[in-house]
């Protein structure tokens, strides 16, 4: 139901083909990060309270890798990257404010 005469479509993304090497490399990095999470969870008892923080950090890195390569954020305009960062910052604020409650209760 599109009527282009009446609309402004700013779609200017250039087509791109991602190489197998990049796909495979991303997948390997995700597997390695998963192993790292399990390793810290099972064997990283020395980290104590930092265990959760480390697991969250690794999960965030994995999410970024997925967004950047698999979801093609790498090829998207800068605005989308900024939006992504704003969302992550918002999530960080949630966690910080929750932590303030838990640490001072």
């Amino acid at each position, binding site marked *: *139901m*599109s*009527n282009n*005469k*009446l*609309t*402004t*479509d*700013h*779609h200017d993304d250039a087509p791109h083909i991602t190489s197998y090497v990049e796909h495979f490399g991303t997948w390997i990095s995700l597997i390695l990060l998963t192993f790292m999470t399990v390793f810290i969870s099972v064997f990283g008892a020395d980290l104590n309270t930092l265990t959760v923080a480390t697991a969250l950090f690794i999960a965030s890195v994995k999410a970024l890798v997925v967004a950047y390569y698999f979801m093609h954020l790498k090829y998207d305009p800068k605005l989308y990257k900024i939006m992504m960062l704003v*969302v992550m910052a*918002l999530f960080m*604020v*949630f966690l910080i*404010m*929750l932590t*303030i*409650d*838990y*640490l*001072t*209760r």
Partner: protein
Amino acid sequence: MTDSSVSQPNFFEVKKGLFSWIFSLDHKRIGLLYLYSVGSFFLVGAALGVLMRLELFNPGADLIEAKTYNQVFTLHGVIMIFLFIIPSIPAVFGNFFLPIMLGTDDVAFPRLNLLSWWLYVLGALFALSTLVFGDGPADTGWTFYAPYSVKTGTNVSMSVLAAFILGFSSILTGLNFIVTIHRLRAPGMGFNQMPLFAWALYATSWIQLLATPIIGITLLMIVAERMLGIGLFDPSIGGDPILYQHLFWIYSHPAVYIMALPAMGIVSEIIPTFAQRTIFGYKAIAYSSLAIAFVGYFVWGHHMFTSGMSGPAAYIFSILTFFVAIPTSIKVFNWLATMYKGSINVQVPLLYAVAFIFNFLIGGLTGLVVGALAADVHLHDTYFVVGHFHYVMFGGTGFAFFGALHYWYPKIWGKMYNKLIANIAFAILFIGFNTLYFPMLILGIKGMPRRYYDYLPEFHTLNQISTVGSWILIIGLLLMIFNLFKGYFSKQKAPANPWNGITLEWQTQSPPTLYNFDKAPELVEGGPYNYPNAMKG
């Protein structure tokens, strides 16, 4: 001003039959599907509200017993919040008018839009199914607080699954609007040339998109806790009930702005039209929508001052809460400044908009009272909170919804309601509303707790006044609905632009054609509310 008697078939006429509606991809038809759905659920929710008021007319169990009362107020809350207020303005008027006001032919993803409505229907069926399955509807209140929601034998799982599904509907609508606003604006329409209703929907959509997933996963946690006993929220198995409250309110406080911001957008449309002048502080109103959406994310803890949250966290949340008042006040001052010395045409939509300001001010200021840490300790979980919430939601969003209905009625259906009856219905509604809810503020200050079917004799008179108010309000409501139906069946057609509006929806015929415009709409030079230029032109 063009007459509506144009040759193009309108969107009602292009196709007929039930399937042409329930599988329609036309944003206008989907908007009307939402209108009929949310309107029906509003009446169900209102009936449950009246039932509660009848029970509270006298102390003691007159009509319903304690458990039934708990189930009734829960169902009332779930229906009114998730099935009426959240989807009301964005899904009805946003769907119908956003593409038209942007000068385009539809939303960015029409199929997603239809899916959104179907998800709404599915969620509604889940909510209503609690009436017939298991031990009846949930009795937890619409907040589903743990650990009670984990332990109660009533049908909590179905209720939270309903809210979960409805959340997806809300997310999809938000996503659709964000993409539509970014990519489908008419040529030459920058962000600062958009109508303020579009700005309000834009801010709302970001909240829908970012906050709703949190409630989704939280409600699934409740189901998991009930079925698997994981120990997330139930302290008897190692959980933390305050964690549930944090997660619930991280969504549900921003959700208050999902409900309020579109209403503010409506008021920003109605006031310049009936003052026939440029809106005062366009950018301030537009950006304050974003500011409200942004600050609204960081104030959720003010619902938990008495829940056992830490002192320092409570101080921080209380201070942050007061910041929300700033952008809200900016809007109110700008609306008043727009009307000041304007050539005001007093019509029913304007009355609803002004009533919105009056009610919302009471709701907002009482919100500051409960946002203040010391006062909230006294007022938390009393009828003061019930009064405050209804002043914001019903007195604010509800009245804006009715205002929008009267404002865009001639555009949607190409007919006009009886203005005298509409004025009388408005007056009855306004009096009924304030008679119903103002006593609740006093009852709360006197210490009457919320969510009880019974009360002490000292609260009797104010409860009776409140119940009488509910009868007046229902009379006004029924009269308003009767008048709108009567207008629909009248043979007299409304002109295409009965209010002399200059935003783009008034450039097309009433009702609009399938693709909204026959030719590209002309943007008003100098902004969407530049009335002096438009009049000269």
